[in-house]
């Protein structure tokens, strides 16, 4: 299976995603250049983290107009799996692939730490290898991660089981919903209505190696592999 990882100007987690796929998952990966209209026959597209166009104006606002994004949008519309991480999530929202927006953290500060995420649904192509309610330890690192949408959208997301991850309590308090960035309803990740586009602020590609403290993120890649090759 082949993962196409998009490199926008300013992407900086493209290489990490590549390593996760190639080294840990043992699958094929290729970089997709933002100026090309070529997805290199990828089975899955990854929109990686970073600061595309410096996050100037708004995170993800400029990248969504990249030539390659027109192809990614087409790919997604045809049901192709897209994993949008951090800046990728911001780009996917700006591009209309996912509802809502990611605004400046309430603290107005960049926040980097390992958070706990609860799997809200295993009924997606990204989470089928996890147990429902499982708690993952995954790093976050962002300044604009406050998931925001109107109430109707939020209700719909919840009603349709499209909230995939929520942030779990801060250090100490076990099961309280909580959020390191002010996200509405503690949302850390969602899927689109067709279920083939996942946007998440935490970085699963940084949680694939016990040496670095967690391999809880690997299941996301494994879930995709299981579904696509099934």
């Amino acid at each position, binding site marked *: 299976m082949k993962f196409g990882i998009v490199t926008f100007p300013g992407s900086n987690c493209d290489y990490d995603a590549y390593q996760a796929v190639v080294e840990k998952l043992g699958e094929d990966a290729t970089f997709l250049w933002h100026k090309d209209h070529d997805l290199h026959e990828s089975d899955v597209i990854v929109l990686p983290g970073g600061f595309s166009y410096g996050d100037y*104006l*708004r995170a993800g*606002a*400029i990248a969504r*107009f990249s030539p390659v994004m027109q192809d990614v949008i087409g790919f997604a519309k045809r049901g192709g799996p897209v994993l949008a991480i951090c800046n990728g999530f911001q780009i996917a*929202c*700006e591009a209309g692939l996912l*509802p*809502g*927006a990611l*605004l*400046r*953290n*309430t*603290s*107005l500060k960049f926040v980097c730490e390992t958070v706990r995420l609860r799997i809200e649904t295993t009924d997606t192509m990204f989470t089928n290898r996890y147990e429902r309610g499982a708690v993952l330890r995954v790093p976050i690192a962002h300044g604009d991660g*406050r998931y*925001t*949408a109107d109430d109707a959208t939020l209700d719909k997301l919840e009603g349709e089981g499209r909230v995939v991850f929520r942030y779990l309590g801060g250090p100490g308090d076990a099961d309280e919903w909580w959020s390191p960035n*002010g996200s509405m309803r503690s949302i850390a990740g969602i899927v689109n209505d067709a279920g083939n586009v996942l946007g998440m602020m935490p970085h699963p590609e940084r949680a694939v190696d016990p040496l670095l403290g967690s391999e809880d993120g690997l299941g996301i890649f494994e879930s995709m592999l299981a579904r696509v090759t099934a």
Partner: protein
Amino acid sequence: MSRYRIAVHIVPRRGILDPQGKTVADALHTLGFGSVRDVHVGRHIVVDLEARDQKAAEQSTRDMCERLLANPVTEDFEIASVEAT
């Protein structure tokens, strides 16, 4: 073609949390500006462009706001001023 300078305001949509505005208001209180009631922070974008006439300049700027400068999900925009330069 003439040259125009157009200023645009992009502001968080009503009802959307504006932590920046709140932080600024708190900081102003700390600094002794106790009479401040509320603060909102948005973007002020100044675009210099060439256009046939003022109307065209304005229309073009409006397009820019809709396509790129403002996020329709969370922001409102308004053309604040148009000046021939």
